[in-house]
């Protein structure tokens, strides 16, 4: 029904529509230089981009050459080219990205006509659904395309909820909670990912489940960080239920020791500190000595007393001891029993044992965070003043910028409500701290918009906003004191200050987070845990191997960071990192032990670089066999930044596929692609790349044959470059270092900003990549170039899209 109406509309408006479609066509001659068809060699398949192009544009031009151009020519030119039936329409002007943008043809309308199937008219065979889709995708990309020399638009920064990793590491740095021991992010719901990363602000949502878990985690964090609440002072607490060996219960409680024995009880010391133990005791005298009472803690005697007091007036025997935190066994022993039948009997009565303390604050061993949190209160007079000082100082760290009066007042209201409800001062302060940990000012990183009503307004991040952006990029955690200081004195806002902090932070062990989280997601190492390698097909694949694979990639990336290495090593290198298990897997001899070391690879080795690491080869496999398509896609997407469009649904059965035999071999299956025009355009690029890895099985082991047949790792790239094995591929990729550096820049910028890169980011990406190349392709130069970019240091608002 809908189609009918639209078609009628189309026929009715054919002339008008054609005019719209052509837009300015025929009015003004757009820049002639751009509309002239380029020599075929320039944009021929898989060539280097021209100097004024970036890789993205070159890729779009190439796709035009291969697919879109012929398609438009076949289906549109007859009517809509300058010499076409419909006269002056000029669709022939579209020969690449730039000419399409300047041709005057209304690309949106063209896309609409093609994707809805309204054009070409039903009277002639049109493009297939998949062809229409490819054309629509190409047109979308061209419409959005921003040339690399356009002015830089920094884009927006959506309030960024700390993701699980950031939450865990921030608690570590804020409160000293070691995530390897207690991971409070464990129960938080998984973060969804976007653009391949789990730190994309727009994707990080907060559900009620998350709020509940944040609340519980905040409560636990405060208790863990500060230790239990303790009452300081001489506040004796009798041990309950004293038990006796060789004794009998006394009527008013306690134990009567009639022979060598002891009265025992337990005391839970909330913290390590100085305590006072008091024993209320008396003797029944006999012989020439007083009864002796030995006092033990956890079986170790701490002192002994001579008990002279008698039953009618028991004595109190006191000792000051240092107790460790936890349950302590406290016992009073009768040391000198004396007994002469019917004549003399010395006994010891233990009425009560009590423990008081810790007796003074100075003696108490507090966790790291205790002094950090309470130090600011030193010198404050009175509970409320103290609370204000503590909460204000904590808020400044938790909110990652100086606390305002408003911040502190809000926290103080929580404190007061607690006090009014009968809580102790310390309890109420703790609740205030808990509140700060669920405040959106802690859980979210936001930037203040000077002009909230105007989304287009641009502004620089202030020093604290920049400090947080930097620390979450490099450390996945909050700024440290030095970074806060650089924000406070404004030095962070200068290029030199920002560079200096970046370099310092990259040398800090906390930059391991960048390796783990950026490299772990870019190379998809994290998927190793989820990938279901079939153990029956690959009995060698176990937890240790998987862990070793992950570690290799992390060591490699971490080493580039630490040694100022070139990112081109990620494509190809003559070294890698292995332990014994991984070396065995790779067939490398002479490596023993579990620890990782850098090894130099033999000349001609297929290892080196990330693509032939076990981790990457495994992640890009199916559970029981390799997947050249996935491997090809990994290279095109993660290394070259030119992922092909996804396959169409309802792929028709390949010609030889239906049958009752076993699944066809991988290469056989792929060969069928080239015979089908709908598949060939993409698979001509994907398959030869993927097949060049065929010497590696699904868990990255070298192999010469499969099922008794020798491995064939040859292929021909579009453009005629022949590949024989993966080292050929690495050479081709190394020749395209510009494109690789741009791709890596785009991935890292995504991670650094916590948002997907948009077409308007291309100039910034280009700029950063050029700068990185000029600095020896060093990984640290790439990071510094990102940090110093306009995009990282400024922002604008975002239009609200309904």
């Amino acid at each position, binding site marked *: 029904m809908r189609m009918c109406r639209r078609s009628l509309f189309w026929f009715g408006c054919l002339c008008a529509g054609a005019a719209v479609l052509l837009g300015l066509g025929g009015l003004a001659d757009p820049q002639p230089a751009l509309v002239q068809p380029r020599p075929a060699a320039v944009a021929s398949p898989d060539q280097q981009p021209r100097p004024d192009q970036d890789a993205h544009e070159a890729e779009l031009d190439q796709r035009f050459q291969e697919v879109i151009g012929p398609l438009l020519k076949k289906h549109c030119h007859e009517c809509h080219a300058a010499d076409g039936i419909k006269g002056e329409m000029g669709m022939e002007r579209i020969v690449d990205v730039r000419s399409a943008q300047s041709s005057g043809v209304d690309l949106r309308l063209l896309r609409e006509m093609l994707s809805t199937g309204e054009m070409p008219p039903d009277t002639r065979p049109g493009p297939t659904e998949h062809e229409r889709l490819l054309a629509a995708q190409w047109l979308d990309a061209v419409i959005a395309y921003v040339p690399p020399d356009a002015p830089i638009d920094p884009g927006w920064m959506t309030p960024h909820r700390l993701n699980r990793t950031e939450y865990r590491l921030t608690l570590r740095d804020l409160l000293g909670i070691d995530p390897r021991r207690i991971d409070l992010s464990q129960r938080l719901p998984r973060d969804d990912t976007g653009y391949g990363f789990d730190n994309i602000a727009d994707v990080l949502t907060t559900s009620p489940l998350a709020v509940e878990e944040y609340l519980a985690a905040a409560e636990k964090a405060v208790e863990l960080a500060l230790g239990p609440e303790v009452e300081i002072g001489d506040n004796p607490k009798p041990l309950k239920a004293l038990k006796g060996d060789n004794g009998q219960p006394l009527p008013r409680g306690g134990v009567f020791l009639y022979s060598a024995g002891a009265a025992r009880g337990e005391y839970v010391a909330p913290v390590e500190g100085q305590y006072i133990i008091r024993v209320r005791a008396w003797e029944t005298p006999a012989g020439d000595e007083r009864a002796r009472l030995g006092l033990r803690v956890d079986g170790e005697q701490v002192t002994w007393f001579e008990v002279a007091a008698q039953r009618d007036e028991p004595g109190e025997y006191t000792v000051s001891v240092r107790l460790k935190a936890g349950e302590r066994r406290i016992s009073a022993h009768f040391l000198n029993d004396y007994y002469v039948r019917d004549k003399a009997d010395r006994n010891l009565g233990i009425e009560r044992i009590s423990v008081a303390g810790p007796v003074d604050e100075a003696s108490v061993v507090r966790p790291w965070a205790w002094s950090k949190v309470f130090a600011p209160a030193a010198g404050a007079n009175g509970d409320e003043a103290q609370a204000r000082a503590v909460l204000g100082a904590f808020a400044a760290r938790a909110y990652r910028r100086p606390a305002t009066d408003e911040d502190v007042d809000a926290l103080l209201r*929580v404190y007061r409500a607690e006090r009014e409800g009968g809580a102790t001062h310390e309890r109420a302060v703790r609740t205030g701290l808990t509140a700060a940990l669920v405040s959106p000012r802690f859980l*979210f990183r936001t930037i203040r918009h000077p002009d909230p009503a105007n989304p287009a307004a641009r502004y620089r991040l202030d020093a604290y906003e920049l400090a947080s952006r930097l620390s979450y990029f490099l450390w996945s955690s909050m700024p440290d004191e030095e970074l806060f200081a650089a924000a406070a004195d404004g030095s962070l806002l200068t290029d030199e200050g920002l560079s200096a902090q970046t370099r310092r932070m990259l040398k800090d062990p906390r930059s391991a987070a960048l390796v783990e989280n950026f490299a772990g997601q870019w190379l998809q190492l994290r998927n190793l845990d989820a990938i279901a390698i079939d153990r029956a097909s690959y009995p060698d694949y176990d937890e240790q191997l998987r862990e070793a694979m992950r570690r290799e990639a992390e060591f490699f990336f971490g080493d580039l960071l630490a040694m100022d290495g070139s990112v081109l090593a990620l494509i190809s290198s003559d070294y890698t990192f292995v332990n014994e298990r991984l070396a065995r897997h790779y067939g490398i001899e002479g490596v023993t032990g579990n620890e990782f070391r850098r090894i130099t690879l033999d000349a001609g080795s297929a290892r080196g670089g990330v693509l032939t690491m076990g981790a990457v080869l495994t992640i890009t496999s199916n559970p029981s066999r390799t997947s050249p398509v996935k491997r090809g896609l990994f290279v095109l997407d993660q290394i070259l930044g030119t992922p092909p469009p*996804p396959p169409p649904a*309802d792929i028709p059965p390949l010609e030889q596929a239906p049958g009752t035999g076993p699944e066809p071999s991988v290469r056989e299956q792929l060969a069928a692609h080239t015979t089908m025009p709908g598949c060939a355009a993409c698979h001509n690029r994907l398959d030869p790349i993927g097949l060049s890895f065929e010497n590696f099985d699904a868990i990255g082991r070298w192999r010469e044959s499969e099922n008794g047949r020798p491995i064939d790792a040859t292929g021909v790239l579009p453009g005629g470059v022949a590949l024989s094995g993966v080292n050929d591929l690495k050479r081709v990729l190394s020749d395209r270092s510009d494109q690789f550096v741009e791709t890596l820049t785009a991935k890292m910028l995504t991670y650094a900003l916590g948002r997907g890169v948009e077409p308007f980011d291309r100039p910034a990406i280009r700029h950063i990549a050029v700068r990185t190349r000029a600095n020896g392709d060093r990984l640290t130069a790439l990071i510094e170039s990102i940090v110093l970019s306009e995009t990282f240091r400024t922002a604008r608002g975002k239009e609200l899209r309904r």
Partner: protein
Amino acid sequence: MNGRLSRRTVLRGLGVSMALPWLECMTPRAAAAARVIGGGGAAAGAAPVRLAFVFMPNGVNYEAWAPVKAAGAFGLSPTLKPLEAVRSHVNVITGLTLQNARANGDGPGDHARSSASFLTGQQARKTAGNDIRNGVSIDQVAAASLGAQTRLPSLELGCEHGPAAGNCDSGYSCAYTSNISWRDASTPVPKIVDPALAFERLFGDATQAAAAAERLSRRKSVLDFVLAETQSLEASLGSHDRRKLDQYQTSVREIEQRIERARRESDAPKAPDVPAPAGIPERISEHMDLLFDMLLLAFQTDTTRVSTLMLAVDGSNRTFPEIGIRDGHHHLSHHQGNHEMIEKIRRIDRFHVERFARFVQRLAETPEGEGTLLDNSLVLFGGGISDGNRHNHEDLPILLAGRGGGVETGRLIENPRETPLCNLYLSMLERAGCPRENFGDSTGPLALS
């Protein structure tokens, strides 16, 4: 302490051995709510209707699924064979379509769209993240009405987290493939994968019960603070940014209301006397069964009346070693006509149906009032793709178990082609006592009796 013990004794045993007439055991609020809701029920009288939505990824091999027509009922196709024992409790519903899982101009991404629109009926906006937009899901619509009666408005479960890196489907964010439950257009509701965490969420951590009251009032004051802080922070933000914090605020409010309710009732959640799960089992069947058990417990104890369960994320490439399937599910689903692969897909489909059948059986064995829990439940089972090889979204594989709200079971309900799946949702809402005029692309309720 004694009080807790006696409640535990009453609740002893899981499923079969557990005689739990919900009326006797219910907290006063639930009883009051049941009186209000009563209208929907028939024979069961006042028992509330429970709604569950079980999602199966990657479509099925439809030839083996398609029910065989039989007089007054459905004949069991090879894939539906495991329903033998419970066939009188189940309806097979054919002819349903998920129009908004289709490309409709958005190109590839059927897996993302099928999970995204399965319960929302909406066309998910194609984005890898910067502009996520879907719609409110049917379970959350139901939870908005039914949720106020129970401690948890809804429970979201799943057997797989989904990829931790990389892209999920053709330019769609993983938020679309990993979640079927959506609280509002831009906020998916995450699922719980670990049965131990699910148990704790349902019944709380018993060790903390003592300090509960004090803790609740403290939490209340902390959340009041959070709400005030959110508002004050929003003042300095643009409208797009504010929306992000609105999400947080809404979630905080929900937890605050839950705390309010808990304080009024001063009644610790009643943990049934069954062993708490120890974590995620190695075997997939055990994992699925355990999550189904959690769902059953949640319904049985009236902790929630609305739940979703994702057997896996859409596009899942997991293997099924316990039934001898060593290739990935998604890989196999694109069999391109290969017989061996088709046979494996059928085995996976049957495996899923077996898990569901077991759940239905347990619901049917759990007494409630004068009938069973199944009499008061409606459990939808299915997915948003029909044939996994073709990625088509008409003739969806859909089953509906249970007689909640008076639905008649044991039938084959055939619909004209292209009947919106959302029509079924309208009927389910109606039976649960929270009718709506329309939902998604619905055109009117389906007749279920």
